[in-house]
């Protein structure tokens, strides 16, 4: 009897949870399905879910009408570039915070975090003017610089929390054996910190890929990553649902897969260790 209620309870919960999960996921699923329809079928009422003429023409069209590959590459270069530059700057900083802490370490960490809370509109105009005067407006370099700086606090914090889990004695032993600072970080710390660094990299690529304030404000046709490119569909001509869907599906799919892999690190990275 007790077993039967448990089983039926589990069945009920399963139905409920799957229904809610599918409803929440539905806009993404619907976008993916629509990307394989013709424009006429995309606005058909009542809509068809599976029983339509599947086509790949939207994907070809999106590329031929507007250089989709260029914007995709912009996204890749900007998100990966800003993350790698950020790691390069953050690894030494996090090393010193984790292994040679001073009285001020905590203050520095907290101050770094506070820069993340600066609303972007507070510095929009100076950055815009500085970029205009230095030719960085609408350039991938400019966007890499901005995204490196806005994500640097998160990178330092995440690395710091991962480094702290590595016993400092190992690094000290290396130091006793005469390893220099560079050797200590490169050959002793980094190999042990690979999982932490990988998680940090993953989360920051995701954040940079989806960043939409600075990319929309500082890019035009040349350097526009996908966030800004997709925004051009807000003033379309003619039927465009299927093409919007194809462009969106390609923009979301790679990062969704990365996100699913990094879901555990997400909590850690986005709450700065405040929730465990």
């Amino acid at each position: 009897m007790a077993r039967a209620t448990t089983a039926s309870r589990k069945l009920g919960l399963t139905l409920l949870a799957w229904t809610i999960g599918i409803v929440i996921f539905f806009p993404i699923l619907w976008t993916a399905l629509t990307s394989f329809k013709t424009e006429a079928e995309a606005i058909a009422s009542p809509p068809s879910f599976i029983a339509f003429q599947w086509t790949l023409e939207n994907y070809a069209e999106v590329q031929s009408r507007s250089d989709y590959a260029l914007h995709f590459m912009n996204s890749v270069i900007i998100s990966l570039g800003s993350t790698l530059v950020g790691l390069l700057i953050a690894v030494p900083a996090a090393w010193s915070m984790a292994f040679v802490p001073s009285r001020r370490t905590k203050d520095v960490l907290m101050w770094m975090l506070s820069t993340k809370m600066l609303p972007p509109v507070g510095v929009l105009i100076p950055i815009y003017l500085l970029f205009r005067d230095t030719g960085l407006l609408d350039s991938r370099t400019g966007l890499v610089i901005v995204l490196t700086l806005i994500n640097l606090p998160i990178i330092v914090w995440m690395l710091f929390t991962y480094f702290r889990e590595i016993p400092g004695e190992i690094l000290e032993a290396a130091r006793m054996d005469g390893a220099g600072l560079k050797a200590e970080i490169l050959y002793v710390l980094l190999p042990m910190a690979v999982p932490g660094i990988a998680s940090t990299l993953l989360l920051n690529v995701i954040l940079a890929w989806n960043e939409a304030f600075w990319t929309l404000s500082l890019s035009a046709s040349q350097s526009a990553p996908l966030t800004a490119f997709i925004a051009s569909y807000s003033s379309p001509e003619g039927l465009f649902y299927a093409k919007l869907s194809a462009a969106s599906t390609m923009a979301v799919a790679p990062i969704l897969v990365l996100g699913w892999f990094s879901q555990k690190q997400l909590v850690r990275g986005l709450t700065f260790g405040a929730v465990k």
Partner: protein
Amino acid sequence: MATAHSRAAARLTMAPAVVLLLGWMLIPLAMTLYFSFLRYNLLMPGSEEWIGTLNYEYFLTDPAFFAALGNTLALVGGVLALTLCGGILLALLLDQPFWGRGIVRLLVIAPFFVMPTVSALVWKNMLMNPVNGLFASLARALGLQPIDFLGEVPLSSIVMIVTWQWLPFATLILLTALQSLDRERLEAAEMDGAGALDRFIHIILPHLARAITVVTLIQTIFLLSVFAEILVTTNGGPGTATTNITYLVYALSLLQFDVGGGSAGGIVAVVLANIVAVFLMRMIGRNLDL
């Protein structure tokens, strides 16, 4: 033991990160502050002059500012209420045993990874469009009049879109916190005859208090700066119905090229965000033992 040598090295290795962030924060912020006291419009070059606090007076007495402040509060408050309530319920559900938990979890967190411009445009066109949208089809199938979401209830529609984006975040954090709950306490309470609601109010909710605070503060910081969703759906309209502070400052700065006015607005936004940030920093600082 840290030697004097390694301390010097520590300062050196920290320098690039500190200097860059200091430059990123101080230089532009100082420039914004300076511009906010100038009459300075990019469309009228050469007419810059010091006008004291006039930009602030204009900005803070502009009806658009009050509209934007109200919209910002409604947007932040609405999304917070919905994501917290929804997040707690979802976290409780996902914590239960059922078949395919891992997959449902993936489905639920997926919207968080969708870039803001994509989610806004997909919702605006394919779901909320009063003629071709899916909701309109659904309404017609039920014999109802389709709603023009972004025309008739624009702010609520944006709250809905942003809620969809942030519900996964709230759920994931709350679920993580829930999983560290001591199961034996719950079982003991159940043996003592505490009902499900009692257990929720007296054991689960207090245990989640910290996570709820963190979600509230972190989301508030991001929600104060909601921008892309408004830009691609309504452009702040109709009128100023969906203009928040961030969008207002953006429009002043990069659409009207009013550097002075935009800077004053930017400084006001910084002050507002700081009020929230102080609480969040205290919270995280308390948790960080060095």
